C-alpha cells in the first residue's frame, strides 16, 4: 500500500511539472503571441519593446526563462505580476483563496445534501411519478449555462423583485468571514445556491442509479429476509455502498472548483476568488499570475485525483495493480 501511495504521488508531481511546461509553452512558444507587446501597450516602438523584453527577462533563452520563473514562484516566492508592477503573485493567490473556499465549501454542502436526498428519494420512489420529476431537475441542472443562471439570479434579486421579496439581498460582492459572518453568508447565499444547482442534479442522477443497482443485490435480499424495515435497508445498506462512487466524484469536482473552476460563478457575482484572478490575468496575458493560478489549480486537481485513487486502492486491493 505504501509503495502504491509513493508511486501515485510521484506521478502526480510529474503531471504538475508537465502542466507548468505546457502553460509556459502555450504563452511563450505560440507563434504570434508576444507578452512584451502586451506589456508595452499599443503602438510601442521597437526600442521600447526591446527595453521591455530586457527588463522582464523575455530576451533570455526559453528554458532559462522557465527555470527563472519557477524559481521565483516556488523557491524565492517573490514572482511579480507583469501588468501591476510590484504586486506579487503569491500574496494575490493567498488573498483570493478564502473567497473561493467560502464559495465552494458552502455550495458543496448544499449540493451534497440535496443530491443525496433527491437521489435516494428517486430510487425509493422508482416507478412512481416523483421519480421522473426529481430526475428532470437533474437534467435542468446539467443543461443550464452557469453564468447565465447567475445573471438571471442577479436580475431577479437585484432588480425585478428587489423592492418586494428580495430587499434583504445585498449587492454582488464579498465580505470577509472574520469581518462580519452574517454579511458573509448573506453575500454568498445566492452564489452558493447557483453553484449548487449545477451539481445537485448530476449527483442525484448518479446516486439514483447506484442505489437502484444496490437494491437488487443479494445482501439487500438477505437484509429483507432478516425482516429489516425498508427504511433501514435503504439507508443503512443500499445507500452506504452507493456513496463510494459519489464521494470519489465529489473529490474530483471539489478539487477542480477550489482550483478556480468556479470562475464563471465568481465573475458573475463579483467574487474576487481564484477564478476571477485567473480570468483577469488571462485577459492581460499576465503570465506570472496565470502560471501561479494554473499551477495552484492543477495542484488541487492532481491531489484530488491521487487521493481518490488511494481511497479506491484502500477499499479495493485489486486497484493497486491496475
Amino acid at each position: 500500500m505504501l509503495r502504491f501511495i509513493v508511486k501515485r504521488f510521484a506521478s502526480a508531481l510529474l503531471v504538475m511539472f508537465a502542466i507548468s511546461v505546457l502553460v509556459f509553452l502555450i504563452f511563450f512558444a505560440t507563434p504570434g503571441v508576444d507578452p512584451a507587446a502586451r506589456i508595452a501597450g499599443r503602438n510601442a516602438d521597437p526600442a521600447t519593446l526591446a527595453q521591455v523584453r530586457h527588463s522582464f527577462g523575455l530576451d533570455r533563452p526559453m528554458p532559462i526563462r522557465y527555470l527563472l520563473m519557477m524559481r521565483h514562484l516556488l523557491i524565492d516566492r517573490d514572482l511579480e505580476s507583469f501588468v501591476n508592477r510590484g504586486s506579487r503573485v503569491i500574496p494575490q493567490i493567498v488573498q483570493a483563496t478564502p473567497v473561493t473556499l467560502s464559495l465552494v465549501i458552502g455550495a458543496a454542502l448544499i449540493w451534497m445534501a440535496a443530491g443525496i436526498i433527491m437521489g435516494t428519494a428517486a430510487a425509493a420512489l422508482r416507478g412512481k411519478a416523483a421519480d421522473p420529476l426529481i430526475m428532470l431537475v437533474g437534467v435542468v441542472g446539467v443543461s443550464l449555462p452557469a453564468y447565465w443562471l447567475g445573471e438571471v439570479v442577479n436580475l431577479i434579486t437585484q432588480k425585478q423583485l428587489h423592492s418586494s421579496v428580495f430587499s434583504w439581498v445585498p449587492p454582488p460582492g464579498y465580505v470577509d468571514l472574520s469581518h462580519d459572518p452574517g454579511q458573509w453568508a448573506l453575500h454568498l447565499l445566492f452564489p452558493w445556491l447557483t453553484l449548487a444547482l449545477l451539481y445537485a442534479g448530476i449527483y442525484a442522477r448518479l446516486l439514483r442509479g447506484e442505489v437502484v443497482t444496490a437494491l437488487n443485490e443479494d445482501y439487500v435480499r438477505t437484509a429483507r429476509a432478516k425482516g429489516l424495515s425498508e427504511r433501514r435497508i435503504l439507508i443503512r445498506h443500499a445507500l452506504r455502498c452507493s456513496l463510494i462512487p459519489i464521494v470519489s466524484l465529489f473529490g474530483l469536482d471539489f478539487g477542480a472548483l477550489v482550483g478556480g473552476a468556479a470562475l464563471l460563478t465568481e465573475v458573475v457575482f463579483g467574487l474576487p476568488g481564484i477564478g476571477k484572478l485567473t480570468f483577469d490575468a488571462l485577459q492581460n496575458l499576465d503570465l506570472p499570475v496565470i502560471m501561479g493560478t494554473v499551477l495552484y489549480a492543477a495542484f488541487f486537481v492532481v491531489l484530488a485525483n491521487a487521493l481518490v485513487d488511494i481511497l479506491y486502492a484502500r477499499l479495493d486491493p485489486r486497484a493497486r495493480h491496475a
Partner: protein
Amino acid sequence: MGQVSTAAPELATVEARRPPGPWRTAGADLLHNRSALAAAVVLFLVVLATLCAPLYAHHVAHTDPFQSHVSGSTVADGKTVPVLTPSSTGLGLGVTPIGPTWDPAHYFLGADNQGRDVMARLLYGGRTSLFIGFTAALLTCALGTVVGVVAGYAGGVVDAVISRVLDVIWAFPVYLLAICLSVVLLTDGLHLGPLTVEAGSLWLPVAIIAAIYVPYIARPLRGQVLVLRNKEYIQAAIGSGAPTVRILRREVLPNVLPTAIVFVPLMTALAMLTESALSFLSVGVQPPDASWGTIIEDGLGLLYTRPAVTIAPGLLIALTTAALNVLGDGVRDALDPGARLRGGV
C-alpha cells in the same frame, strides 16, 4: 458486437428467423423511448428555426442583424418610435433600445444596444452555436476514438506516452485550459504545419473545444480496448496473421463504436455550453459572427432595462442542451455501454 459468421449452410437457410442486429435493436428501443423522441422533436424544431434565419431576417423582419441601426426607427403599437432612446439617467452616454414588441415584423424581441433585431440575431446565433457544438463533438469523438484505440491496442511505450498526455490535459480544469488556448490563439490564429485557422474563424473555438474534451472519450475507450485485446477472438485474429489495420477495423472498432456514439449528443451539449461560456467571456465567437453566448454578453449591459436580450438566448441554450442530454440518455439506454460523463461547470 463483431460480425457473427453464418457460414454454415443450414444456418443460412433460416435467414428469416435470425434475430435483428444490435443496431436495429437499439434503434427500435430508441423509437419506443418517449422522452428521447420528444427531445429529438425539440432539437429538430430548434435546428429548423435556425435554418430559417435568412427567411425571417429578409422576408419577415426586413432587417440585417449584423448591421447596427443606431438612428433607425420602427413601428410599435401603430406609432413610429426610434429604435434607440438616449437614456435619461446616468451620464447620458447609455441608450435604451426598444423592448419586445411581440410583432414578428418589427423587433419581436426588441433590439440590442446597437439597434439590431434580437430575434434575427438569435436565429443566426443559433446556427453558430449548433454548428460549433455539433462539429466540436464529432471531432472530439473521432479524435478520442482514434487516440483511445491506438493507446489501448498498441500498449507499451505508445500507450504510456498517450496516457500521460491525456493525464496532463485531464488535470487542467477544462474551462481554464479552454480560456488559456483561446486567449493565446485569438491574437494570431492557429498555425499547425499546413493547417491554418484564422483568429476570427468559427473553426478556432471548434478546434479548442474538440481538443480539451478528447481525454473524456479517449480514456474510457482505451480501457475498453485493453479488455478487448485479451479476448480470444482478437488473439485468434492476431494468431491467424491478420493485418493490424484489419483487426482494428473489423474486430475492435465495431465493439467500441457504440460507446463513441453514445458520447456524441452528450458531448454536443457540453461543447455548446463551453462555447457559450467562452463567448460570454469574449474569448469565443468573435464579431461580426454572433452565437447565443455572445448575445448574452451583449445583453449584460441591458440586463436591468431590457432583460429579454439576455434571457432569450440563455433559455434557448438550456432548452437545446437539455434536449441533447435527454436524447443522449436515450441513446445510452439503447446501446447501454455503461458510459458515464463527468460533469463540467
